[in-house]
Structures are given as C-alpha cells and as structure tokens.
C-alpha cells in the first residue's frame, strides 16, 4: 500500500486537479485553523484567570470577625465578636480539612516607617511564618518571619520590595533597623509577592506575637488565613467552610448563618466554580471546532466522489487486469487521507503559529510591566491537543474517503469499459 506507485498515482491525480484539491484542502485547513484559534483563546482566558488566582494558594480561606446581626440563644444582635490566640490554636488543631493557619492583628492607626532621613507610610501586616507559603511570597533577600521570631517576640520585619526601594534605594537593607512609630525593627528579609500588583509590595510583615505585645493587642486577633485540604468539587469546599463556621460559632456564641458576625471567604470554592465555566467553554469550543471540521470533511468526501466518478474507467481497467477491491479502496482512501492530513497540518501550523505570535506579544507587554492585570495569558494549545487534532484529522480523512472508496470498489469493469 505504501510503495511508490500508489503515491505516484495519487500525485498524478492531484496534479490534474490542482484548484479543486486546493479548495478542498483549504476548507479542512480552515476548520483546523479555527479550532486551534478557539482552543488557544479559551486556554488564554483560563490561564489569565488562573494567574489572577495565583497571587495566593488556591486553597486559601479567610475568616474575619465582625458584629452579630441576628439574635442567638437569647443574646441580642449587635455584639462584636473577638478572636484571640486560643482560636488560632483551635483552628490549627481542628481537623484534617485545615492545613496551615496564620492569624493577623491589625496595627492601630497609621504606622510611619523611618530609616535615617527617609520616611514613609506603609501597610504593616502581622502574621505567622506559614503565611509565606500560603500567600505564594518569594523572599528575594534574607528570610521570612520564623518560629523563633514568634516565640521570642523579636522585633524583626520583612519588607516589601517597594518599601526597600523607598527607604534604602540601592543599599542593602538586611540587618538595618527601621523605626515603626519610633520602635526599632530589624530588617531580616525582602519579599516579592508573585502575581500581585505593585501596590501590594508596599506591605511589610512582622511576627503577630510582637505586634500584639508592642501595639497593645493582648491576645486579640482580627483575621485568620487558612489553607484547606485541596478538594475537587465546589460542594466539598463549601462543606469545609460550613464546618469551620459552625465550630467558630459554637466558640463565640453566634448563629452559624450570621455572615456579619464572622465573615468567611473560601477561594477554592470560587476557583473550582470558575474553572468549571472554562471546562464548559472548552467543550463548547470543541463542538464548534469539530462542526467546522465536519464541513471541511464533507467537502473532501464530495470531491472524492466526483474523482471516483471521473476515474470510473481507469478503475474498471485496473479491476479487469487484476486489481482487488482492497487495492482500489486503498488508493482512494489514501488520497483522501493525504489531502486532509496535509491540509490539516498546514491549518494546524498556521493556527498554532498565530497563537504563539499573540503569546509573544502578550509576554512582551507583561514583561514591560504593563500587563499585570491582563485576563488573557499564554493563549497556546498544548502538545496533546495538537496531537488529538491530528488524529481527528486522519480519522476524518479516512471517513471522508470511505464512501467514495466503497463506490470505487463497486465499479463494474463491464460498465466502466463500455465503449461509449
């Protein structure tokens, strides 16, 4: 089937019908081209949104204390709920669903940072060491807050990159002391918060124990950041949220349904729901793409039918001198597969090429600092998808050739060779 004669014959017929072959091939190439662009765009959108999520671990959950808005067990509404260090210990040991916990105490008022002659007002966050991995923060110099800092109430600070720029310019900040409202803190690290906007690098971090002691916090905590077990359905994520709410409600005497008493936000549930939308978009894109492809394939099938009709006499001769139906089917099928595969491959190359080009442009925009908020990233099609598309092509080429090939195999030499 794969010797040179077969190819010679296929190329001879293709050469005889250049325009027709081109038009047919074009419809297949176009189908694949559109499929690649649609899939690439879908991926781009999904990647863009995923990048937005990447500023934190996707399994992050936040809890914050508020004021009750519903009466509960004889208690009036309007009570303020206060978290404390015991809640931290409780959440940490609660169950397998919760993995890491970090609590935060909001520093009162406006904190002014001074270093030598430089000063500025920046956001200060108090935390546990686990916040680093939870918030996907990377330390560019020194280290993050550690357990020793926490236990010894050390006055250490990890500064955001913008804080370093404002206070130190090009000097090395490590080991230097910054005054926060006239309390000296030793700089132990500089962080770069991946995926965040530049504003967020204005935040600095200090141990929560130090913050509570220095800024009169006693054992008060304002918010908790928690990472949950990574689950696959939004329902499971919601049930983790519900469990935590119930437990906290029991500890602080409020109605678990009271959203104002304790606010909570489960990022994982939202992430799963968002990704589900993209799953649906992807299915939709495949349906449209395959629809376009089918139109192309019907075109190929049509052309092959005409071709078989035109070559009836030749096929008749071949059968008279000993061509088996199998060899005739092979001839037609192979030609059909050749046209669809080559045309499809060209469409594939152009589609992927275009999306890579767009990606290059996007990366350049991001690289120059202007694209941090783009909801469209890496709009490319992965290797598996390209291979899948290729397999679909070859199969569809075979499908397109099948009917005409059957027709060719059924050519009666007598009728084909009739002298008319």
């Amino acid at each position, binding site marked *: 089937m794969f*010797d*040179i*004669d077969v190819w010679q*014959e296929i190329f*001879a*017929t293709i050469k*005889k019908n250049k325009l027709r072959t081109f038009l047919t091939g074009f419809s297949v190439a176009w189908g694949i081209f559109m499929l690649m662009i649609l899939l690439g765009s879908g991926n781009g959108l999904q990647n863009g949104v995923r990048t937005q999520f990447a500023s934190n671990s996707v399994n992050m959950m936040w809890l914050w204390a508020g004021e009750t808005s519903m009466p509960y067990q004889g208690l009036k509404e309007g009570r303020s709920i206060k978290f404390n260090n015991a809640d931290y210990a409780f959440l940490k040991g609660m169950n397998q669903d919760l993995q890491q916990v970090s609590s935060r105490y909001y520093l009162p008022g406006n904190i002014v940072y001074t270093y030598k002659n430089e000063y500025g007002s920046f956001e200060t966050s108090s935390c546990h060491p686990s916040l680093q991995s939870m918030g996907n923060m990377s330390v560019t110099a020194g280290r993050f807050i550690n357990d020793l800092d926490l236990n010894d109430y050390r006055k250490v600070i990890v500064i955001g990159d913008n804080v370093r720029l404002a206070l130190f310019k090009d000097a090395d900040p490590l080991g230097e002391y910054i005054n926060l409202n006239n309390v000296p803190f030793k700089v132990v690290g500089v962080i770069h918060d991946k995926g965040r906007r530049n504003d967020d690098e204005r935040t600095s971090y200090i141990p929560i124990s130090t913050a509570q002691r220095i800024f009169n916090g006693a054992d008060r905590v304002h918010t908790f950041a928690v990472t949950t077990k990574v689950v696959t359905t939004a329902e499971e994520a919601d049930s983790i949220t519900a469990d935590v709410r119930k437990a906290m409600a029991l500890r602080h005497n409020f109605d678990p349904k009271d959203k104002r008493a304790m606010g909570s936000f489960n990022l994982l549930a939202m992430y799963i729901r968002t990704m589900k939308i993209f799953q649906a978009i992807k299915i939709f894109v495949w349906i449209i793409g395959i629809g376009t492809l089918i139109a192309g394939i019907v075109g190929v099938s049509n052309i092959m039918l005409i071709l078989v009709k035109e070559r009836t*006499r*030749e096929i*008749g*001769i*071949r*059968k*008279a*001198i*000993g*061509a*088996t*139906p*199998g*060899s005739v089917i092979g001839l037609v099928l192979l030609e059909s597969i050749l046209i669809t595969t080559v045309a499809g491959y060209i469409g594939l190359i152009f589609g992927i090429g275009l999306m890579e080009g767009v990606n290059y442009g996007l990366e350049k925009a991001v690289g120059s600092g202007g694209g941090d908020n783009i909801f469209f990233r890496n709009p490319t099609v992965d290797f598996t998808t390209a291979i899948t598309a290729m397999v679909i092509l070859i199969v569809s080429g075979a499908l397109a050739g099948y009917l005409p090939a059957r027709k060719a*195999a059924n050519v*009666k*030499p*007598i009728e084909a*060779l009739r*002298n008319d």
Partner: protein
Amino acid sequence: MIQIKDLHKSYEMGHNSLHVLKGLHLDIEKGEFVSIMGSSGSGKSTLLNILGILDDYDRGTYYLGGKLIQGLNETKAALTRNEMIGFIFQSFNLISFKNAMENVALPLYYQKISRKKRNQIALEYLDRLGLKEWAHHLPSELSGGQKQRVAIARALISQPQIILADEPTGALDSATSLEVMEILKEINDQGKTVIIVTHEHDIAAMTKKIIKLKDGVIGEVIKNGELQAFKDRVRTE
C-alpha cells in the same frame, strides 16, 4: 480450456427481465484461435464478460482451465483474472497518466512484483512488439496501432493462458488492423488460446474458428477447413 454448459444469463431491467444467454454450450480447446460474432443483442458482449470473469451467470457451469468459475468473490475473481486472462479492448484502455512501460507493467504490480523487476519485464515485452523506443511515452503521444500494441503487451505480461480481445481492431484503420491481427496470430502460434469478439467478417476470417451467436445460443460454428468457403460466402453477400 473452456467448457461452458447450459449457460443462462438474464439482466433485470426495472420490472422486466432480459434473458440474454439461453442455455449456451461452448467448448474451446487449448491453443485455439476463435472469433465470436453476432449482431448486437445476440449476447456476445455478455458472453465475453462471463468468459473474462467480469460478470457472473445465473445457471449452468463454466470451467476455465479445469477450474469451476462460479460465485467467486471480487477479490478471488480479480486474482483469477490477473493470473489466467489477458484483456485487449477496442478503445485500448491505457491509463493516460502512465507511460507505455508503466501501463504494460501494471498487471505485475497487482502480482506484487517489485517495481524494478516488472519494469524490466515490461521493456522486454515492448521490445518484442517493436515499441522499445516508445517505452517512456504517454499513451497520448502514441498512434492507435501503437496503443493497441502496448495494450497487447499488457495483456501478455502476466503470461495468461487466454487472451480475450473485445473488438481489438474496432478503432483502427485496415492496415493497422491487419498488423494487430498478425500479432494475435503469432501469439496464438506460441500456444495461447486467443478469443476475439468482432463484427467484422474479414477480421473473423483470419481466425481459425468462428462462433456465430444468435439469440443467446450458438447459431453456427465454422471451422478451419470451411473458412475459405466462409470467406467466399462473405464476399458474395
């Protein structure tokens, strides 16, 4: 070589059935040079198709070289044709985009003989028919007589026992016709059975036996010795 007994064949034409062959008996020995004649509608094309295993029949028996040819599937029929029968057609039926050599070699392609070897054999056959220097020409560059000689070479290359020729001279002028008939005669002299379907009396007269079909059965068989008489009769007709 060929034994046909009580052969029936009819074609369905809508609601009507056209009974073409009505119990035909025919015996052709090995090495005979036979022509089949008959007016249109006498069933000669149908008979040729059945002889060439291009069509099936309804009733009776057909033995080809001692082998019963009946109800073969397409693949088997194709293989038998390839092995046992060489076809020559009125309109040559060469493949237009293949040169003379490739056309001649085609039956060997279906015998899965390597390209190099079959082209070499094809050249030998073309040489025998005096067409060696035309081997690399396309059919469109050949004259009618040359085309038919290429077709004859193609029919011979698989070394079949029987050559079936359907109006081999129908598209040729009389000089070329004579040339082609000479070639067929030579082939017959080498021991091959040659069967020609024709409606031209002078062509038929060059064979050794004439079978005249009439209304689906054999009307008349004229043998070697009687040929001269046949020729005379044709002349006076």
